[in-house]
C-alpha cells in the first residue's frame, strides 16, 4: 500500500484567508516550518496550492476553488503568518511570491 505524501494540513493547523477588500491572501498556521518557504505554486487546473521549500515541496492539502481560484489567479504574493495559538498573536510573518502553473 502506497503512502500518500504528507500535506501541510497533515502536520499543522493552517487556513487560507481571502480579504475581499483588497483581494489579498493570507495563510495562518500554528507551527513553524522546518524548512525555508521560498515560493507558492498554484495549479489552476487541480486547484492545488504547492508550498515550495528550499529542499522539498508540499501541497496545502485541500483544493482551492471558487473565490480562492479568482484570488489566487490574480495574486502576486501570499502573506504567511505563524500564530501563537495561546496568545492569538502573530509571531512570524513572511511575504511569499506566488506563481501560477
Amino acid at each position, binding site marked *: 500500500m502506497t503512502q500518500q505524501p504528507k500535506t501541510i494540513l497533515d502536520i499543522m493547523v493552517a487556513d487560507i484567508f481571502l480579504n475581499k477588500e483588497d483581494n489579498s491572501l493570507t495563510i495562518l498556521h500554528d507551527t513553524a516550518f522546518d524548512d525555508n518557504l521560498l515560493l507558492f505554486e498554484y495549479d489552476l487546473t487541480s486547484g492545488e496550492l504547492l508550498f515550495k521549500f528550499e529542499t522539498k515541496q508540499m501541497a496545502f492539502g485541500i483544493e*482551492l476553488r471558487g473565490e480562492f481560484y479568482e484570488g489566487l489567479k490574480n495574486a502576486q504574493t501570499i502573506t504567511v503568518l505563524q500564530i501563537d495559538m495561546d496568545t492569538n498573536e502573530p509571531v512570524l510573518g513572511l511575504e511569499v511570491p506566488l506563481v501560477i502553473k
Partner: protein
Amino acid sequence: MLGFLAPLVTGTGAALGRSALIRAAPKAMNSAWNWTKSLLSKKPTFAGLIMASGLPTIAATIDNATGNRISGALLKTPIGPALEKFLKFKEFSNDQEATVVANSATNYLVENGRLKENAPDYDRSKSIIKALGHLAIGDEFGAATKAAELGIETSDLVAALNQAREENPNGAPKDLGVAAFQKLREKLREKDSKLEAAKEFSTAAAAAPAVAPATASVATPDAVVEPQVTRSETPKSVKQRKRLSLDDVSNEGISTIFEKAADNAGFMGMIMRGISFISGLFGQKANFQRWALDNVMTKAKYKALQAANGRGNVVSRMGGLEQGFNIPEPAY
C-alpha cells in the same frame, strides 16, 4: 502608415488642447487598429510589428496587456523595449492626454468585441489599459518610473512602502502610496544633496591652483586634501549622473494613481506588478524573493485581516475559527 500617431506624438501634438485630442484620439485608434489588423492577418511577430512601424503602436501595446486577445505571437517577445520607446515621446506629458488615450482604447476594444464588459477579467484589463494610457505619456506609475530612472532600486521602493505601512498600519492604499512616494522623494533629495556636495567640491577643486604654495598647504587644514585639490577633472560619476526631480509630481496625482492601481490586485500585489512592469520597461527582470516581515509589519498585517473580517469581508477555506484561529474577533 503612422499618421494615426501624428496628432499625439509630434511636436504639434503637445500644443493641442483637450478638445483637439478628444477628436483626434478615436480616429487615431481606429487607424491604429485597422493597420494592426492588416498586419495581424499575416501573423507577424511583435518584433515584426516594431520593425514594420519603426515604433510600437498603442494598439499593439494594449493587445499585449489585455491578455493577448488578438495575436498569440505578440506575447512571445518582450514588451519592455517597445514601451521604453513609448516613454521617449516627451510630448505625452499630461493627465488629460493619458485619459483620452486610455478611454479611446477601452471604448474601441469594447465596441469591437475585443474586450467584453462581462468578462471576468474586464476590470483588470481596463485597469491595465488605463495604466498603459498613463504610462505611455509618462504619467501612470510616474513616480516609480522616475525612481527607476534615478537609480533608486526596487528594494528602495519596497522599503519606502513598508516604512509607510509601519507608520500607518491601517492606512488606505492611496495614503500609503503618498507616504511612500514622499519617502522616495526624501531619498532622492538625500542623493541629490550628496551629489551636490560632491559637485561643489570638485568645482572648488578645479578652481584651486594646481600646485598650492608649500607654506599654505602646511599651514591650513586643507592640506589634508591636497592630493585631491590638484585634481582638475570632475569625477566621472558626478558628470554622468542624471539630475532629475520628483518634485514636479504632485501628491494628489500619486494618490490617484495608487488608488486606481490597488483596486484589483491588493496593495502588495499592486506594488509587485508595478515593480515587474517598471523593471520590464528598463529591460530587467524582477526576481522576487520571499521576504520576512518585521514585527510591526507582521502585527499590522494580522490586525488588518482581523479588521476586514470584522467587517465581514474575509472568507476562509477551512473555517478559520473552527481551526482555532481567532480572527473573527476584530482588533480595534
